């Protein structure tokens, strides 16, 4: 019962956050110079004052700010994110078309980073003077210091040009026909480089974090107790220590999810991955504000959902949290 209540609480709080994003979007559009109509007229190359007034009325821009905000929220709640200036289709449909690619990329990178980062951290924590420990140190420093787009371009040169193992662009081979399995494998081949690029930064962060936290945990009293029961080192480390040591990694991963999505935007443009990052990049080049704001809203929605999931998994992992 308590769990359901806190879950409900968190969900309501998340909805409030989303509402705040909508309001922020609205405010930003209104303090920015010019409005939607000005932008359209710019596209059309000028218009008569009558037409401008008519367009303003059509878009509801002549009404009071409060009414406009209200209509805006009302529309958003009904899934109406407006129409893209450039594509002339509802923003929602455009985003829903591109969202699966981004979700695939982001979740793959997310789990790659957590798994590889944690495993490296665990190995390094057990042998403070080992080779792996130095690898973690170097990897975490360089992963943090290298610009993500540059890592992507370097991997492109290395694995798509010098050593052409992976495709350089897109999510699938154009015109590729085959069984479902073959298509999936084709997508997988395209996914490797973008996912590794995006994960590289977070592998760096998590391996370091996992090492510090595992070092801490391995020195604790309950680990000694576990060993005094005659449990093997493997069980002590991978059962007793890991479940405690991974907690900071989960917290950090939740906190950094918004940055992961932001990183995906950059990675998508490098690899021509057809996700919302690519869409956002094209939207900004054409000043397509409704589309851009819609993407911001949807990506925030993803972050909020991811935060709820992390929060939930943390509660499962750590019984002390009420």
């Amino acid at each position, binding site marked *: 019962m308590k769990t359901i209540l806190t879950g409900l609480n968190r969900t309501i709080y998340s909805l409030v956050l989303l509402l705040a994003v909508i309001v922020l979007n609205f405010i930003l559009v209104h303090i920015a110079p010019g409005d939607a109509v000005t932008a359209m007229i710019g596209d059309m190359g000028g218009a008569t004052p009558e037409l401008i007034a008519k367009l303003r009325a059509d878009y509801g821009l002549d009404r009071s700010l409060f009414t406009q905000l209200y209509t805006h929220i009302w529309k958003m709640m009904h899934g109406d994110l407006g129409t893209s200036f450039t594509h002339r289709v509802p923003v929602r449909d455009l985003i829903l078309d591109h969202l699966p690619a981004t979700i695939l990329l982001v979740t793959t990178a997310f789990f790659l980073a957590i798994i590889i980062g944690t495993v490296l951290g665990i190995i390094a924590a057990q042998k403070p003077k080992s080779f792996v420990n130095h690898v973690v140190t170097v990897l975490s420093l360089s992963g943090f210091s290298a610009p993500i787009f540059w890592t992507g371009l370097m991997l492109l040169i290395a694995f798509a040009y010098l050593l052409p193992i992976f495709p350089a662009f897109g999510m699938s081979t154009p015109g590729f026909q085959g069984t479902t399995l073959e298509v999936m494998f084709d997508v997988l081949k395209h996914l490797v480089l973008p996912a590794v690029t995006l994960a590289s930064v977070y592998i760096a962060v998590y391996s370091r974090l996992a090492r510090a936290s595992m070092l801490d945990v391995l020195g604790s009293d309950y680990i000694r*107790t576990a060993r005094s029961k005659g449990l093997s080192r493997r069980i002590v480390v991978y059962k007793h220590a890991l479940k405690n040591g991974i907690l900071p990694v989960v917290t950090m991963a939740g906190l950094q999810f918004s940055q992961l999505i932001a990183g995906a935007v950059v990675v998508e443009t490098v690899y021509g991955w057809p996700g919302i990052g690519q869409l956002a990049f094209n939207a900004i080049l054409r000043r397509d504000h409704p589309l851009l704001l819609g993407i911001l809203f949807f990506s925030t929605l993803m972050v909020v959902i991811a935060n709820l999931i992390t929060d939930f998994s943390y509660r499962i992992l750590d019984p002390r949290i009420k």
Partner: protein
Amino acid sequence: MKQEPLLQVNGLCVEFSTKNGSVRVLNQLDLHLLPGEALGIVGESGCGKSMTALSIMRLVPTPPGEISNGQILLNGDDVLQLTESQMEDIRGNEISMIFQEPMTSLNPVFTIGSQVSENIRRHQSANTSQAKEKTIQMLEAVGIPAPELRIDQYPHELSGGMRQRVMIAMALSCQPSVLIADEPTTALDVTIQAQIFELLRKIQEEMATSVILITHDMSVIAEFADRVIVMYAGRKVEEGLVRDIIDNSCHPYTQGLINCVPVLKRDPGLKRVELNEIPGVVPNLAQLGPGCSFAPRCHKVVDRCYQEMPPEQQVGENHYASCWRVGDAA
């Protein structure tokens, strides 16, 4: 007739490497434990008593620590010669240990039921439901009310005393022949302390388990142990039956420890109960001289104490002490 010891430690040395070279935290320690006996090891913090326990369990943190010399014979076999996996079969099965801090000695993210049954399943061929049944039995035996409900609780939902009972249940779940209790009640309230000792004694009698009790408190020894070893700066300084040690201690350090126990019955002549202490502090193990380590704090000290290490002398039946002043009039 002399009984064969269950556990015998011969010439045990443990060294820790530090920035300033190697420090010997245990020095030529000999001890033995008889079947069914309660052996007390007493001394101030840093005297090596916990390290003795960890050595017997082969859980000395390595590095920086290392067992550099000696034998630990369990039923005549040297556990120091075993492989790690052979040793794992002994830990929690033949020898178990209870630690000082019940608050931090249980893993916070697993239920107590799973932590106790883990020990049972590790060493006995029991399936999940048998292990669960045994767990409930053990929790009941250590006086935990409603054990079938408690097994699904997490350590943070239990009080310190209850957690220590869980630790005891866990340690005893495979009927070990040796139980090492390292300051099992230091972190607990006085009233709970008495309950825990009562429980330990009851279990020791019922299961015929030999117990090594490690403490800094001489009154605990007086109450619980059959025989006692007094340690100072990594060495054994006196050994004997509890009554001999209490009534007739030969080492000034032992006498100091005994004097530290406050007597609550007030002497009508005194205004208040006086708390005694041993003057000075425990020496730095890295800077020991050639002589007796206790010499700088000893009120009976003579020149020889600083120059030569006193050998162990027999002072009575089963009573040994390492002091140059043994036999001298006090």
